[in-house]
């Protein structure tokens, strides 16, 4: 095969552009990592671009010693686990129940569900409803309102339709009820799809800062991302240092070593770390997930 000079140059230009894109994604994390591992006062002088110049763990000790942050972590983990598994359960039950074509009122129920995709009351009536149900200022505001996802239900339904009906009919002849069929046939067969949708739901919970910022007043209930959102606009260190249990670490280091920026970078690295860690293992699932979801827009 003959490759022209033009094509070879083209190939190099493309490789170069894409390499630049990769650097633009990876570099910010290396930069933030370097700042977070550098003493604050030194980093503020500038010049720390890739490697910590004056290495320290102090920023991480400060952040991890803060009970508010530690508590926020627990809230985030709790809502992610409950929200993801509960959400998948509610959604796949609805998808499976509605996959029975002869179910009376099936079309009516589907229309009822579809309408909510087109129109909603908006933020304020939604908030008032949360308030009236007594969900505001409770942990459950993170979990309950989001348990059912219309979009995920349609994706699941499409997948369930692909399961041979013979299998379900056989199980029915053997006397299995719908719940048993769901648990022993549908769920095991849907594992790749459940993994993909579960991943998206989990990431959504992990990254949500909005509900923590507006549906909750109690600082003991905020998730990590809301803590980060509050810290983003903080003017001084008091929001991180107040009630810090890590007095020992604070005493060891003179305060000038810690700056707002270095503590911020440590906090953001800690919040992003779990995603960075699981990302390589989950890649194969999410590409598949997008495919399933996109077959019909």
């Amino acid at each position: 095969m003959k490759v022209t000079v033009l094509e070879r140059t083209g190939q190099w230009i493309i490789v170069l552009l894409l390499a630049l894109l990769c650097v633009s994604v990876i570099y910010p994390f290396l930069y933030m990592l370097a700042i977070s591992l550098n003493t604050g006062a030194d980093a503020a002088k500038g010049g720390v671009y890739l490697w910590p110049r004056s290495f320290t763990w102090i920023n991480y000790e400060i952040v991890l010693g803060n009970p508010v942050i530690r508590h926020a972590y627990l809230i985030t983990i709790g809502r992610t686990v409950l929200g993801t598994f509960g959400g998948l359960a509610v959604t796949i039950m609805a998808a499976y129940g509605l996959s029975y074509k002869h179910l009376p009122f099936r079309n009516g129920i589907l229309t009822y569900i579809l309408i909510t995709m087109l129109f909603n009351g908006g933020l304020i009536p939604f908030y008032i409803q949360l308030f009236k149900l007594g969900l505001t200022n409770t942990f459950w505001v993170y979990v309950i309102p989001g348990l059912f996802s219309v979009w995920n239900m349609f994706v699941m339904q499409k997948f369930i339709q692909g399961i041979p009906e013979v299998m379900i009919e056989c199980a029915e002849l053997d006397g299995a009820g719908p719940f048993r069929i769901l648990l022993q046939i549908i769920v095991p067969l849907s594992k790749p799809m459940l993994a993909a949708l579960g991943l998206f739901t989990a990431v959504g919970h992990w990254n949500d800062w909005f509900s923590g910022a507006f549906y909750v007043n109690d600082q003991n209930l905020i998730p990590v991302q809301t803590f980060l959102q509050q810290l983003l606009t903080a003017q001084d260190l008091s929001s991180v240092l107040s009630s810090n249990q890590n007095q020992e670490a604070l005493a060891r280091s003179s305060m000038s070593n810690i700056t707002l920026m270095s503590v911020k970078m440590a906090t953001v690295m800690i919040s992003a770390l779990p995603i960075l860690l699981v990302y390589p293992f989950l890649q194969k699932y999410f590409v598949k997930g997008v495919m399933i979801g996109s077959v019909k827009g």
Partner: protein
Amino acid sequence: MVARMLKYRWQYVMILPAVVLLFLFNYIPMAGIQIAFKDFAIGSTIWGSHWTGLENFAFVHEEQFWKVVKNTLYISVLKFIFGFPLPILLALMINEIKNSAFKRFVQSVSYLPHFFSWIVVAYILQSFLTLDGGLANDLITKMGGDPIFFLGSTEWFRPMIVSSGLWKEVGWNTILYLAAISTIDPQLYEAAKVEGAGKLAQIRHITLPGILPTISIVLILSIPSLITVGMDQIYPMMNSANQEVADVLDTYVLRNGLQQGYFGVATAVGLISSVISLILVLTTNSVSRKINGEGLW
């Protein structure tokens, strides 16, 4: 009928949680829209409040409201102009890479930012653009320029939002195009090569027509979201210095409603944007039915 419904009783049990959740968190808030026409305050009941007619809609005479509408459209149109073609271009470039290890690497890296929250993105921007010790201003001052306060400037806000949005989502948005490209019959390329078509000719006559259906689906799906710019991205970057250009419909509703307690006004603004997005969805769907012979539903 009743007998048939009894036969499917367990299926109804499965669907019930979803139906109840939608009723509580979608349908009741829809009824709550009447707040837009009432003098509701939290603590009073929606049904007990007085009707005020269109009083809450007085904002349409205010300059501030139209500025917010203009900001919303400005940002969403800018995001669309760049955000729509770039993933296609990126997918075409990724497809041209011959080294498959590098290809996989580019894909993994470019999807990554999609999994981080907008708060994390805001931190990345802050760490690079801040006045004290940020990389961008370090470079500017080293080259003899005056430092720029990117984070609190009206001129830099839109470029910042558009470019960080691109950075976060461009890789993710290539997944569908790459999938579409992979379904194109390789024989077409062989035939084109035999006829002497160069790379560019192949892209123009085979690849692009091959992914055209995907392009049109993505286009259709992106139109209804033109009115919702997304609080998630804007809110963390907004401050008193850039509010002139940063304030969009979503943040306007948030400020007037949840933060200042003007529930009626905020609901009215929310209602207007819900209606506009409903019109956009319905119009897009019927246009797409006419052109593609198939709509979203």
